[in-house]
């Protein structure tokens, strides 16, 4: 076992031990362990397989910077095993294996490596012949974890938060920055750290400053700590997306900060040489995290290949824990001060200088068993069970890059530095190339103070290191290859060399062609080394090549976390409960729900709808039309506004009347229709279709502002409810509830009246959308239920039939009335839709007028026609195509079996050349052709006698 004796500051509760199951075997863990630390403690070296060649892989960064750590956990794919707390009984498996991590059949692919060169996709798919074969193969093998389609997604609620200063990174710099921010007036500071406890890379050090800062932060109520959270994206206005990395479902917090301090540290970089990807070859910082946080030894006999003082520090820590360590300092590097070297010697650690790695060698279990090094005098093999790498650092400033920041390369320091940071964003600590503990505290205080005071000063670089802390070129090619630059994508030095030779010789091109940096870790451990290889091959200085930007999310986020709790806005009419009580079957209409039809005992859907249609034709029906847009227009310029908005003329409309109105877009296409009622000389009431209500209101607002019109708009869509009482007996029923004269002369067709109805003020329009005597009644939302119930109470039992949208569609189709958006599309002019009669081209201007003039000169491209078929049921469906000489010449827009007429009727948009035909064929979904007869609309009551209802109507 690799678990060590209890250590001060470890993140474990040793009193609580449990097991999870990994690849068929039980793995013990303590409370506080991650899956990764528990596997390391259990001595399980191979925990993953690589993406392309299925090579054995193990814990590598232990800090979320590589794809090796992605596991399938309890059915959830691609979970971060080095961040998630282990759960008792969890079922855990490696991703991307065929037959398990130990016996992965996919490993055979590595034998095909010579045939899978860089740019394989581009080279292979340039010809069509082999595409189907490779597509099937790649689809089968691509991706990492598997989505369990049967599992129930978890969608935790989003949280929104605002703060004065956000500090990202809970290391010693971040702690100092957070405290400085509150000391300089920040009322709310949010401290975000991926670790479950503060400390960052300083965890485990005995420096008293860390403990002091931790205590002061813990006692400060103005600092909110988001431990176990990862900032995955930085957006406009300093908005941060924070993901709870400690929970499998990962809750999302959206944080808006006045200023941001990036105390995000620096990401340790690997050394590239042959077999540098074997299990138990890992970053020194990862081994340090295992040691201090989880009391796990990365090995018992460890070699550290380093160019940094950090590698030496890790060697000291491991030696102090009783682990045998050999330090191999890379050639052309001189890490660490003399004091550090002396401490190593005192601790009995062997230190080799000026070494060049040749290759790592695997043991029987596939994990590293030895490393061959070229020293000044000889080539030597060093047996080991863990090989740690530390080649240098990349500042973790990816969030700043997402927000438009830039980095600059320093030849002196051999690393990138922040060159330009977005306004209100400050870098501090290791992210700012400040490494010494005391300097990091001071740099954090500087950044925290600047953030709190809103200072727009550039980062102060006086504290930065003055000599290189990174190796200039830690890439060591081997004649037999397998020197992995990008472990996510299995890319070697040879792959990059070939890509550059093929002409993909900029960092952006190289990324897209070779896929370097395109894996789950987005190049955190590979981009810098790839850049070095690119610059070396081209003979360029490093400063001529830029790092590519890691896109958000910087760490993986579940789709469920992004989605949050589903809550698509749904509107309900005031009569919603009444419909429910009457057995409504619902359908969506825009963002409303509406009754499609009402269930009736003994009747199926079709018969129930037919019964509703017959009731309206024979007696009286009632439909909820509250979803209509309802807009009040007041003021002296109201008529002028309506003349601009609609194709008809309203300025000459008489008070107490309504007019049908058609609205066009700038291209002269129909986008909405409605009814305009003139209430008074300067007071109008306008209805719009359900889906276009908001857009119509916005267009009105635009015109009012643009034309400087003296009128006021009130959108009453939600505040007013509306019903349509329709049928030959509607007048008779309505008369029981009001004292107004409803006679044909006093309240004729298309008239508008306001009177008291069932005790409330109502706005009533004589309209005929369904082709019968009808009244559209508008009342305040509060009164809708009372009106609905009063109408039902006044009717004789069964005499008033509620009808839904399906019946309404049939009724209006029998009458030949179009529905905008169904019988028209985005390219239908009013002439093509048969609405040319409503257009008044002699007006000075209306929206779409000039385009319509041009359209009329050009002639129609399609024509709305009516057709019928002697059948009781339609043998095809809406949207089926009309076919002429084998070519499509139109489509069915509306279709219904008419209960009133006993035949199938419909509308269609067809090419003008076939619009004059007497019949044409429609092709159904199965390819069969059905001939329909063209006719003229309306199909029902063509003279409009019933809707005008000048005289008493017989049912």
């Amino acid at each position: 076992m690799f678990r060590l004796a209890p250590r001060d500051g470890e993140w474990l509760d040793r009193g609580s031990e449990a097991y999870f199951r990994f690849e068929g075997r039980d793995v013990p863990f303590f409370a506080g362990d991650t899956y990764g630390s528990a596997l390391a403690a259990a001595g399980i070296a191979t925990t993953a397989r690589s993406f392309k060649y299925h090579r054995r892989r193990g814990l590598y960064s232990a800090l979320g910077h590589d794809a090796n750590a992605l596991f399938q956990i309890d059915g959830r794919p691609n979970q971060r095993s080095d961040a998630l707390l282990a759960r008792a009984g969890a079922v855990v498996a490696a991703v991307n294996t065929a037959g398990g991590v130990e016996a992965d059949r996919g490993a055979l692919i590595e034998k095909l490596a010579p045939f899978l060169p860089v740019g394989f996709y581009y080279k292979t798919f340039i010809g069509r012949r082999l595409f189907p074969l490779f597509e099937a193969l790649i689809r089968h093998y691509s991706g990492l974890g598997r989505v369990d389609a049967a599992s129930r997604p978890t969608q935790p609620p989003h949280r929104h938060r605002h703060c004065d200063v956000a500090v990202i990174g809970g290391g010693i710099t971040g702690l100092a920055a957070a405290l400085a921010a509150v000391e300089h007036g920040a009322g709310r500071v949010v401290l975000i750290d991926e670790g479950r406890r503060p400390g960052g890379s300083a965890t485990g050090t005995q420096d008293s400053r860390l403990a002091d800062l931790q205590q002061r932060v813990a006692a400060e109520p103005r600092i909110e700590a988001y431990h176990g959270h990862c900032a995955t994206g930085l957006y406009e206005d300093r908005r941060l997306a924070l993901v709870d990395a400690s929970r499998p479902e990962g809750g999302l917090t959206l944080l808006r900060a006045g200023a941001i301090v990036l105390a995000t540290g620096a990401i340790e970089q690997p050394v590239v040489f042959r077999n540098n990807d074997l299990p138990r070859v890992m970053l020194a910082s990862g081994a340090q995290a295992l040691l201090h946080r989880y009391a796990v030894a990365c090995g018992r006999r460890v070699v550290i290949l380093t160019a940094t003082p950090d590698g030496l520090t890790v060697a000291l820590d491991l030696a102090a824990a009783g682990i045998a360590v050999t330090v191999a300092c890379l050639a052309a590097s001189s890490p660490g001060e003399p004091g550090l070297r002396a401490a190593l010697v005192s601790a009995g650690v062997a230190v080799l200088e000026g070494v060049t790695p040749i290759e790592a060698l695997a043991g029987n279990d596939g994990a590293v068993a030895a490393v061959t090094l070229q020293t000044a005098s000889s080539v030597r093999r060093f047996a080991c069970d863990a090989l740690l790498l530390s080649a240098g650092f990349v500042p973790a400033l990816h969030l700043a890059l997402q927000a438009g920041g830039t980095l600059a390369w320093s030849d002196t320091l051999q690393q990138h530095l922040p060159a330009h940071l977005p306004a209100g964003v400050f870098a501090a600590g290791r992210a700012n190339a400040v490494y010494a503990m005391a300097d990091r505290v001071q740099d954090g205080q500087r950044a925290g103070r600047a953030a709190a005071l809103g200072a727009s000063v550039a980062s102060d670089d006086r504290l930065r290191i003055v000599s290189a802390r990174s190796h200039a070129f830690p890439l060591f090619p081997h004649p037999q290859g397998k020197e992995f630059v990008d472990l996510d994508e299995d890319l070697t030095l040879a792959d990059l060399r070939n890509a550059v030779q093929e002409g993909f010789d900029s960092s952006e091109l190289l990324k897209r062609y070779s896929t370097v940096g395109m894996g789950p870790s987005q190049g955190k451990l590979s981009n810098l080394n790839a850049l070095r290889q690119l610059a070396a091959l081209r003979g360029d200085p490093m400063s001529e090549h830029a790092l590519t930007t890691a896109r958000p999310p910087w760490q993986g986020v579940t789709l469920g976390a992004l989605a949050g709790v589903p809550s698509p806005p749904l509107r309900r009419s005031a009569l919603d409960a009444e419909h429910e009580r009457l057995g409504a079957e619902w359908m969506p209409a825009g963002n409303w729900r509406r009754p499609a039809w009402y269930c009736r005992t003994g009747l199926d859907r079709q018969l129930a709808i037919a019964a509703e249609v017959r009731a309206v034709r024979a007696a009286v029906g009632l439909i909820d039309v509250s979803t209509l847009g309802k807009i009040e227009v007041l003021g002296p310029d109201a008529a002028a506004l309506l003349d601009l908005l609609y194709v008809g003329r309203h300025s000459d409309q008489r008070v107490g009347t309504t007019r049908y109105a058609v609205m066009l877009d700038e291209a002269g296409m129909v986008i909405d229709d409605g009814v305009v009622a003139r209430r008074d000389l300067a007071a109008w009431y306008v209805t719009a279709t359900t889906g276009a209500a908001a857009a119509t209101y916005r267009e009105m607002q635009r015109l009012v502002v643009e034309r400087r019109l003296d009128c006021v708009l009130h959108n009453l869509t939600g505040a007013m409810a509306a019903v349509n009482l329709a049928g030959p007996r509607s007048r008779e029923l309505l008369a029981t509830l009001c004292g107004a004269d409803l006679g044909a002369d006093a309240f004729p067709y298309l008239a508008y009246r306001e009177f008291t109805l069932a005790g409330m003020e109502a706005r009533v329009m004589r309209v005929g959308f369904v082709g019968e005597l009808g009244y559209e009644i508008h009342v305040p939302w509060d009164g809708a239920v009372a009106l609905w119930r009063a109408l039902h109470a006044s009717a004789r039992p069964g005499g008033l039939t509620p009808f839904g949208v399906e019946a309404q569609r049939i009724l209006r189709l029998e009458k030949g009335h179009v529905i905008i958006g169904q019988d028209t599309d985005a390219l239908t002019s009013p002439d093509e839709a048969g609405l040319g009669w409503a257009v008044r081209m002699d007006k000075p201007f209306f929206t779409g007028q000039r385009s319509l003039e041009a359209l009329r000169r050009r002639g129609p491209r399609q024509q709305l026609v009516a057709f019928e078929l002697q059948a009781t049921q339609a043998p095809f469906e809406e949207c089926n195509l009309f076919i002429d000489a084998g070519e499509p010449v139109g489509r069915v827009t509306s279709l219904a079996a008419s209960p009133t007429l006993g035949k199938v009727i419909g509308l269609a948009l067809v090419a003008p050349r076939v619009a004059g035909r007497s019949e044409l064929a429609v092709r159904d979904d199965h390819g069969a052709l059905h001939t329909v007869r063209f006719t003229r609309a309306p199909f029902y009551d063509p003279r409009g006698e019933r809707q005008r209802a000048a005289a008493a109507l017989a049912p």
Partner: protein
Amino acid sequence: MMPVSPPKPLPAGIAEAPVPYRLGLKGGDVPQLLARLGLRVPPRPNSWLPLPGSARRWCLRLGNGEFLLAQVDAAGGADLIETCTTAIAHGGFACHAVLRQDRCIVLTGPAATVRLLQVTDIDDRVFLRTPDALALVLLAGVGVALQGEPDTDGTPGYRIWCDPTYADHVLETLARHADHEP
């Protein structure tokens, strides 16, 4: 330091509070009209005031020139609306009465702010600092007027004024978030 991960599941009450009397006022002369009627005017855009005579009458200033008068009790509620509309009808004020049928949802309790911040992106510090704060925000995907109304003991409380057709959605969304709380 306040640990916020994981969030504590604390109680929050969610209910619809019937407010049968509401009236919208729009236009530049609304402050003068209200002053003429002896009513105080919320001094700042996006603020509110209790109206005199009852603890359950409010005047909400929505933005700059739009107002919502609302009253729970029947006594005097209809009169208030009628008085305003009559005054406008008599002329002399550049303002309009607007039909408002907003429904009012009350969110209160120790976890009210936590629940609120799950469905809307507001700076809760504004409500902590200013007891008469009002915000016109998108909440659960719909536009609402959010009125901060803490209890006398400091317990957070909010009134959410929304289009009546969206009120059920807002109520259900708040309840659904409560169900999802870990």
